[in-house]
């Protein structure tokens, strides 16, 4: 027989034939399981198969390179995986179709159920035909009359509302509890749809840019330079802290945001706490500690020709050497930056050697560093003619020019070749090689160029300018040196902050959906809604019940009957 459920209370829809069937299909839990299962399965494939990384999307060269890697791994299968969209699953059109189907069905479910649930709350079906007590999926029978007053008390104590219909010797009773909890399922399902919609809306029209800004400098945010909404981001201080093993501990940046020349916001961003202004968010995205601020002045006019913060983003090998005199006193100890490699023959065939001159005790020495095949680094030390020099390996010692030399190790020092760097008039070339030694990477006072509390570092950083003069210029922070008519100044070590700027999207939609989802789930799963009908005759009590969640219904009803003084038959009907 027809169940007196929400379904039968649904007003007939004016859909006919196949459309009507489709409408029902879309709302059925079986269909829900199929759609949800398919989305889950597809997403699982996306976990198991490598997916085109975000940085390669929209960049044909990067995409091709990534695809070539996949060909190496999967062989010819890679081609098929790619064509089917399986290597970029979450952006494949058919994945969007699957999600669309999920949203359509959940919306159909919410819309389709709403009238029935509403009717069940405002006009519940109070009476059912007697035959329902013998056919209901969840029913109980007891071979005695229940105490109706006790029953009603028990029901009310369990938060039911109760309606009685006495008819002579028989009493009919209707009781329901939390009928409105059925809205929970609508809220929950609506929220699922809302999530997908919010994501689709949010991914359209996002603004996203990344800026690398040195301390003390600023950059415009928007691509249209003259836009009235243009903002300037200035990095006042960028900090990275590391433990002695080099594990990063913390990155933070002190920012100032300007609009139309006015300071509009001043804030600090850390990795997990961005700063917001006018719908834009500023994230700490990267940190780079090897920057050097350099100034060049023309002494004839006094004009500053050049003042830049340069990122020393490459690494070059540099020998760390120690030189002792005959009585064992250390006359020199430190890292010696070397120049670009030159092809030289030092008696063992042509080798790429990087040279440096070093003054120790008033004498000039020539150092040459190269990598001997399969033997590691080699250092040539000579006073005067290179062919009379000695060659030492890492950790080795040898005497040259009256001193004992030791190659302690080979360091990697930050370096950059800077084109367009002003060279003194008369000097050829248009670039200089910058290297920095004794440099602390990421400490609170690295930027001040002060003494840094890092083990193994003797003192302040030194900036080497190669190519500006015959010998490299070595400058401490704040120091200047004049070459010809130009004065070169190492203003100080500077750090760079990578700042990502994004427009805040419709966050609200996501949070509304989360709230609805939680409320809906808790209501649907934890407020046991029940609807029960009873027929209490002189010698018999019958009960039919509907409820969700459909668990433990029978034991719950048995307990109820027991409180009204009757014991349910052991085979009163099917159970959940």
């Amino acid at each position: 027989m027809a169940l007196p459920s929400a379904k039968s209370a649904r007003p007939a829809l004016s859909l006919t034939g196949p459309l009507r069937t489709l409408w029902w299909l879309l709302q059925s839990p079986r269909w829900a399981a199929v759609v949800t299962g398919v989305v889950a399965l597809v997403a699982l494939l996306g976990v198991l198969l490598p997916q085109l990384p975000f940085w390669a999307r929209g960049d044909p060269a990067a995409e091709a390179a990534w695809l070539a890697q996949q060909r190496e791994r999967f062989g010819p299968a890679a081609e098929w995986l790619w064509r089917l969209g399986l290597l970029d699953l979450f952006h494949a059109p058919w994945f969007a179709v699957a999600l669309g189907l999920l949203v359509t069905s959940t919306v159909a479910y919410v819309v389709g159920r709403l009238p029935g649930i509403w009717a069940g709350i405002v006009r519940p079906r109070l009476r059912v035909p007697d035959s329902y007590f013998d056919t209901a999926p969840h029913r109980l029978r007891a071979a005695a009359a229940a105490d109706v007053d006790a029953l009603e008390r028990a029901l009310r104590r369990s938060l039911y509302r109760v309606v009685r219909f006495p008819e002579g010797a028989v009493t009919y009773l209707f009781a329901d509890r939390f009928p409105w909890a059925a809205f929970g399922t609508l809220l929950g399902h609506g929220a699922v749809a809302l999530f997908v919609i919010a994501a689709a809306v949010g991914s359209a029209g996002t603004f996203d840019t990344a800026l690398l800004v040195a301390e003390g400098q600023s950059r415009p945010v928007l691509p249209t330079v003259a836009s009235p909404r243009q903002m300037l981001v200035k990095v006042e201080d960028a900090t990275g802290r590391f433990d002695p093993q080099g594990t990063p501990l913390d990155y933070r940046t002190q920012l100032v945001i300007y609009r139309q020349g006015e300071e509009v916001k001043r804030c600090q961003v850390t990795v997990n706490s961005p700063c917001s202004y006018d719908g834009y968010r500023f994230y700490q995205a990267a940190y780079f500690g090897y920057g050097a601020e350099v100034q060049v002045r023309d002494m004839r006019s006094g004009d500053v020709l050049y003042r830049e913060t340069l990122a020393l983003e490459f690494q070059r090998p540099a020998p760390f050497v120690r030189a002792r005199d005959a009585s064992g006193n250390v006359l020199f100890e430190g890292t010696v930056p070397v120049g670009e490699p030159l092809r030289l023959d030092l008696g063992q065939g042509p080798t790429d050697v990087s040279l440096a001159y070093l003054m120790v005790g008033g004498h000039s020495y020539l150092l040459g560093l190269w990598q001997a095949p399969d033997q590691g680094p080699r250092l040539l030390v000579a006073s005067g003619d290179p062919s009379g020099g000695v060659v030492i390996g890492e950790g080795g010692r040898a005497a040259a020019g009256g001193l004992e030399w030791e190659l302690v190790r080979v360091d990697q020092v930050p370096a950059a070749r800077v084109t367009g760097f002003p060279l003194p008039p008369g000097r050829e070339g248009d670039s200089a090689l910058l290297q920095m030694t004794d440099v602390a990477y990421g400490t609170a006072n690295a930027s001040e160029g002060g003494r840094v509390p890092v083990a193994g570092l003797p003192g302040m950083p030194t900036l080497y300018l190669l190519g500006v003069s015959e010998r490299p210029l070595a400058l401490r922070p704040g120091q200047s040196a004049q070459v010809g008519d130009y004065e070169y100044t190492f203003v100080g070590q500077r750090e760079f902050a990578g700042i990502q700027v994004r427009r805040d999207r419709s966050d609200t939609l996501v949070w509304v959906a989360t709230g609805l989802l939680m409320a809906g789930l808790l209501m649907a799963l934890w407020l046991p809604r029940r609807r029960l009908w009873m027929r209490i005759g002189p010698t018999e009590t019958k009960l039919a019940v509907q409820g969700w969640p459909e668990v433990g219904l029978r034991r719950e009803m048995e307990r109820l009957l027991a409180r009204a003084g009757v014991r349910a038959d052991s085979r009163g009907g099917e159970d959940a």
Partner: protein
Amino acid sequence: MEQASVTALWAALGLTATAVLAYWAYTFGGWLALRRLATPGQGEVTVATWERSPEPLGRLGTWATWGALLAMVVSLAARWQASGRPPWANMWEFTTAFTGAIMLFYVLFERWYGQRSLGAVVQPLVLALLAVNVAFFPSELRPLVPALQSKGILAAHVGVMILAYAALSLSFGAAVLYLLQGGGRRRFSRLPPPDLLDEMAFRSVAIGFPLLALGIALGAYWGNTAWGRYWGWDPKETSALVTWLIYGVYLHLRGLRGWRGHRSAVLLVAAYGAVLFTYFAVNLVVAGLHSYAGV
């Protein structure tokens, strides 16, 4: 403190092993139980003397379980004290917290339903997780990389995920017992009746499913503050979503004719596979593959 936390975990391991033995003896009795498993269930149960529950064994199991829970709490508290942040930031801590949370839900369920036999499945699971933890995951404290330092939200996200997975572990236990009972029959009088097992499984999903939803949402929130995006389809977050969807499938199917009982129990066992996959495999296998792929 760091050492105290490791010592306490070893104590928890010992106590859990005790609980496993006690619950097994309590639930399965011995060889006869194994024989019975091998014969197809007949629908009716004959309650032989050996099938009466040996109460002292059951009590031993319960005490050992409480002891193990206490040891886990001590371990986590010591860890928290030593590191100054919530103790679930690396695999070792995460697994310790996970086993602790399973224990917590387990003792609640044992009290709630007055059923000890669930321990016969859940305790071995906890023991296995603890064994994996001490065998494979390094316990020393290392500073966290900046992306993993977060006041509040990240810790809340991970904590909620742990609770969700722990609650879902109980549904696995109940489903396994359901299948042992012979799919709707009652092979063992000592095990709970099938409808009660079905209810226990459902209740633990009813706890775990919303928690998982909350955990994923908190993860998305954190992703937005840390990386400026809510959702990036990265393997870990996608895998958690897949797990959630599979439990969603269970919630739709469990009420349907043909899916009640046996099939739902099978589905729950499979769904727990997704939990463990998300928990271990994504970190240890898939992430490795992806980094190999040059990400």
